[in-house]
């Protein structure tokens, strides 16, 4: 008995982009509902990161549109998309390396603070109250991620796993509704990957988040994602539950080549 069908959080309609003659992504459709944890997979060069760049406004789509919480966001610059509530991490970590761990998180609060340039230059009370609030919130965040004891360390001095966690913390500090994780487990060992999976499940619960992640680690994807989208040559070739994807002939073909692994169920 459906009373009223809830509006999807993100609705991607016929999205496409071409770079000159190359169609990097075409006819891509995807709906994400509030609270879901989804995976986006595909072979190298399939266009996964391009889709992330389209969703976050780094590229403007040449076709189709993106609707987020009922409003069109395609064509907006990245900083506006972030302010609408989509936040992301990067495949190759992009931290502010020379800044402290604390400042990295504080920067994410920047759009949420209100004190003006003049109040900072003249050191008006609003500067102090806002900066103090930013600092307290940022420290609270670092505590959640177990990074608070490293807050004065430069971001570049963190170990690899710590940098990945910090990048997720920074993305979350922007208070997104939808979090995009681009290969969060890349370069992690199995133990770190396991911790990361727990972390993702935890933050999703705690912040009532919707998460879309790109990942090559099948164990992670199959383990935590509720629905999976499979991309190949810029086109969606399959979507569904993990067990469906595992057996989907087109997916097997895309990953292993044609006519191989004929394990139909």
């Amino acid at each position: 008995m459906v009373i009223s069908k809830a509006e999807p959080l993100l609705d991607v309609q016929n999205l496409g982009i071409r770079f000159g003659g190359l169609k990097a992504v075409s006819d891509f459709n995807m709906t994400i509902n509030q609270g879901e944890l989804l995976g986006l997979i595909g072979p190298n060069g399939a266009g996964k990161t391009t889709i992330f760049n389209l969703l976050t406004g780094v590229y403007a789509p040449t076709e189709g549109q993106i609707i987020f919480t009922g409003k069109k966001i395609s064509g907006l610059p990245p900083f506006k998309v972030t302010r609408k509530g989509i936040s992301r991490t990067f495949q190759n970590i992009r931290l502010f390396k020379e800044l402290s761990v604390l400042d990295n998180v504080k920067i994410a609060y920047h759009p949420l603070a209100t004190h003006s340039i003049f109040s900072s230059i003249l050191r008006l009370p609003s500067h102090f109250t806002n900066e103090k609030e930013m600092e307290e919130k940022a420290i609270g965040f670092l505590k959640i991620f177990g990074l608070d004891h490293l807050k004065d360390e430069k971001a570049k001095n963190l170990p690899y796993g710590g940098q990945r966690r910090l990048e997720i913390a920074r993305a979350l500090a922007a208070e997104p509704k939808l979090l995009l994780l681009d290969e969060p487990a890349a370069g992690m060992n199995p133990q770190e990957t396991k911790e990361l999976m727990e972390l993702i499940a935890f933050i999703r619960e705690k912040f009532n988040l919707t998460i879309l992640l790109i990942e090559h680690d099948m164990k992670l994807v199959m383990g935590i994602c509720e629905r999976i989208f499979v991309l190949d040559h810029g086109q969606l070739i399959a979507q569904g539950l993990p067990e469906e994807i595992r057996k989907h002939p087109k997916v097997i073909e895309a990953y292993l080549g044609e006519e191989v692994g004929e394990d139909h169920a």
Partner: protein
Amino acid sequence: MKKSKSFFLMFGLAVVIYAVIQFLLYNGILNPFYENTLITILINIMLAVSLHLVIGITGQFSIGHAGFLAIGAYIAAIFTMKLQMPFIVALIAAGLAAAIAGLIVGIPSLRLRGDYLAIATLGFAEIIRIVFLNWDFVGGARGMMITRMTDWTIAFICTILTILVIANFTNSRHGRACISIREDEIAADAMGINTTYYKVIAFVLGSFFAGIAGGLYSHNFYIIQPGNFGFLKSFDILIFVVLGGLGSMSGAVISAILLTIISTFLQEYSETRMIIYSLVLIIVMLYRPQGLMGTKEITQLFQKKKSFKGGKQYGHFES
């Protein structure tokens, strides 16, 4: 609490420096030649600190700072000499004119990155110089005669204001936004920072203080000529910032002081002056490629020592 303490410390230091030098000048222990050198040092500090905001903090490689200096110098001179306005009004007008020029140049050219921005700003500075060169109202190539109005007090006040404003800007969410652009522009954008806005703001603020420095500069000599504002002047300012350490304001101040003193005292040996000056630069860059101060500030050096004494783990108490 700690930050306001260091603020009052710095303020006290500034007052003491001012009082001591004012006393020496008043009693004639320092002759007018030294006063002139001191003013040149202060002007160079203003230029170095204002360019530091653009290059060191925001990471935008602008090498046309002499253009803003020229605008400030000429606008202030026009206000005092042609319009008979008070010097203070002229200085403010000089700052505003340079800031407006910064806005006009900044909005299109800050879309460019790295070398392209450098070339665009260099071109801008040359255009400004050529405009003044061909403008008969301000004397063209012959230059413009100016009454000397800059004294040690006003130069000192302007310098302190410049340092204070830029330091306060840097140590706030706005400064952090600028630093994040320097560190990684794509990530800054993805964190919701309007990168174009902050690049332009930093550029305009830097231009404003360069303009005021220009006003002081033109009234420190009896004549200004377009030749004073060639690209070599831009490079002089750039050298202050790079030599001091990109991202360190105290570095920019220290190198502006040192290099001005070196070049002033080398004026007696005019044949070898440029050779010695260049050698100093080469040696510093060979032995400290990150600049005199790296990215650190003087105040940080003191804080570091304290936290080392207490042991590293326990250094995180005060927040």
